[in-house]
């Protein structure tokens, strides 16, 4: 599967990474190189093989329904680039 510039641009948008136009081609080449190499996985017959869901054989642990976390807004906000009155502040979203 070969990626063209438009697809690379689309992936960059999905990943929210700005890729300047002039870089799209080279990035596409790099990605195509890697994708070409992983293509060999199609050689393997996996017809009746289940995908690995978890490496460990164990039950999903469940917590008790008790409030034992949170209530430390200064710590939660402490590393934020921009806050106001206890809120995180970001440029406006166009709704």
């Amino acid at each position, binding site marked *: 599967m070969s990626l063209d510039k438009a697809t690379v641009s689309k992936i960059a948008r999905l990943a929210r*990474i700005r890729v300047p136009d002039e870089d799209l081609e080279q990035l596409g080449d790099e990605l195509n190189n890697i*994708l070409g190499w*992983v293509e060999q*996985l199609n050689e393997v017959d*996996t017809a009746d*093989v289940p995908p690995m869901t978890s490496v460990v054989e164990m039950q999903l642990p469940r917590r008790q329904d008790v409030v034992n976390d949170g209530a430390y807004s200064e*710590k939660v906000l*402490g590393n934020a680039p921009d806050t106001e009155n206890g809120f995180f502040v970001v440029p*406006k979203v166009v709704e």
Partner: protein
Amino acid sequence: MVELTHLTIAEARDGLAGGVFSATELTEAHNTAIEAARPLNAMVLETADRARDMAARSDLRLAKGEGGMLEGIPLAIKDLFCTEGVRTTAGSHILDNFVPPYESTVTANLWRAGAVMLGKTNMDEFAMGSSNETSFFGPVENPWRKPGDNRPIVPGGSSGGSASIVAARAALAATGTDTGGSIRQPASFTGLVGLKPTYGRCSRWGIIAFASSLDQAGPLTRSVRDAAIMLSAMSGHDPKDSTSADLPVPDFEAALSGDIKGLRIGIPSEYRMDGLPEEIEKLWQQGIRWLEEAGAETREVSLPHTKYALPAYYIVAPAEASSNLARYDGVRYGLRVEGDDLTDMYERTRAEGFGAEVKRRVMIGTYVLSAGYYDAYYVQAQKIRTLIARDFQSAFDDVDVLLTPTAPSEAFAVGDKSDDPIAMYFNDVFTVPASMAGLPGVSVPSGLSETGLPLGLQLIGKAFDEETIVRTAGVLEAAAAFDAQPEAWWETGQ
């Protein structure tokens, strides 16, 4: 006077217990060594004052006879472990001002055991790399150099800083993380012991996530005994990590019986790859002989899907990473680059904050999960993972441990492979399969290459059977008697 920076943890432990030197002295010696080792660029943050405070408290506890398993032992911590109040960057610009308000479970375990933090080590950005050349903070140098050759050598990655600083004898030991080989391969490149436990043995809580189903914490040390001690301290069930195994932690040091009589060692034929340097094949054969001489039986085994492990890894790991790294968006912590609107802010922040390798992997990961490609790539890779795990299970019906080379080459010069991502990926060809199956692996320094650089041999064990690989590693270490040390060129100004 004993050279305080030339001790193993076990020796330091004895020295402290016996009052030969204090924790403060031990730490101060390492603080000094770390300063001297700056040309290696192995540390992104030195925490000398904190180390002194911690050492002082260790001395008080030792005086009362209340010392923990690692009391007073000075360690370097890979900058992927969140350390409360101490900047943690994951080797990335996007987190270069992040100060965690919480401590990772593994490091909390270490501090509870009495260890001392010397600082945070440099690493490949977000643990993506095998040479520590992708760090925002610049590449790390291997303390080892080829005799008569001034060129900087890579220490391996992603735990390159940890490996480098321990090999330079400026930290007694260090923590690393291993997703596809990032503890074992740098260990091999720097002449250290590097251990990746079974997936779930150590908690991932507070370790900045790269690939959730593969990441594991582990020690980089100068001896197998030290690795065993560190592993016991680091391990343990954590209810805050849903993938953490609820199993008691064995006394791994006690596993070092030195006896492997009757142990069955498998030699996977598929690891004898085209292009494998002859010296590595020779070392491998030497390893086989050493173990046989110690009373083990060796036999060929087959792991038929070995060659697919690396490409499958380079689908699964980037896929998980693309999702794990989505949180780095300039909103709640880390770098923010202003933009015209929210989307522009996200895009500029991440473009500027992430390095090229990270961006490539996030893009690959995003692509292989995207509509229309999910089944062909991600699901297929996860199915192949099942086959790889089955290969190991089958082999372990007949043998107890596998012996393989750790890396397909000696350490290479900085810049040698950085233009070819796939060539770089091949550094992990022997370590990735065990990661994909979640199995424990340890690299033991076993010899020097023809150009005088360290080479390691890897032992892979059954799930949660670190004791057997530790035991075997102890024997291998004794047989190899690897005692070469790098020349401290950095102390004399290159």
